[in-house]
């Protein structure tokens, strides 16, 4: 894993959490949407918070796809779950939502879960693309070393 790849994982986390918070902030201006006023949803696309939220979520999706191009799905999903923690913090700071003790326990569980994958290899499948051959070989060596050290 290079610094650039850690930055991509950080981008997935930050863009995902901030995009969701911006969407939530924007949708507060509209109130609850029901089947009788669903047309109101269309005007939501003109709300600046919603527009910024959508732009951030597009950046999230691009960085998520980039991460999936060189790391396992079972690595990317838990490693970027920090976005749930960030979302709770942003919701408390900017939306003044109540973050309970139960929420902080959830934050703790997610942090432990991220710690489990962060110590392992990011790619465990053979590369399907020539460009990834060298890195995949290196990953296998690191993986073998870590398995040996565990034994």
């Amino acid at each position, binding site marked *: 894993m290079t610094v650039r790849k850690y930055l991509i994982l950080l981008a997935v986390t930050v863009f995902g959490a901030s995009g969701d918070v911006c969407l939530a902030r924007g949708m507060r201006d509209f109130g609850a949407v029901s089947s009788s006023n669903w047309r109101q949803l269309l005007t939501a696309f003109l709300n600046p918070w919603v527009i910024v939220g959508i732009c951030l979520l597009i950046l999230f999706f691009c960085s998520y796809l980039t991460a999936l191009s060189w790391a396992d799905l079972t690595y990317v*999903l838990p490693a970027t779950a920090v976005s749930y923690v960030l979302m709770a913090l942003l919701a408390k700071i900017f939306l003044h939502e109540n973050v309970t003790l139960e929420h902080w326990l959830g934050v703790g569980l997610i942090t432990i879960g991220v710690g489990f994958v962060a110590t392992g290899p990011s790619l465990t*499948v053979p590369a399907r693309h020539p460009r990834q051959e060298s890195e995949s070989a290196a990953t296998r060596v690191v993986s073998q070393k870590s398995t040996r050290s565990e034994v």
Partner: protein
Amino acid sequence: MTAALTWAGIASIVLTATAGDVLQSRAMKEIGDLGAMRREKGLLQVVRRVVSSSRFMLGLLFMALAFFSLLITLSWDDVSVIGPASASLTFIANAFAARIFLKERVDHRRWLAALFVAGGVVMLAR
């Protein structure tokens, strides 16, 4: 609406979201490192390569199905039930699907990570 229907909706969300994630992960591995490709050939070429992948487009379709399943299921029951249940079960389902369809080596660390994150999501979403 009955609880059985709510759980059928949750199952639909989990299955379609997992199918979308697995298809997109497979498509990205086939295309190769997007960052390196962007530096070599430019952003336009990367976008062209990604959107021309039928697996990626199928993954996108499943993600859209997951989103609409979520919307429909939310009209049947509380978000406090559907949100945590679907998010946490999707984490677990992804671990199973990645092992079976993507042949990823899901060792004890990754299982524990999926379980801890799923548990954390349930508590955060309450």
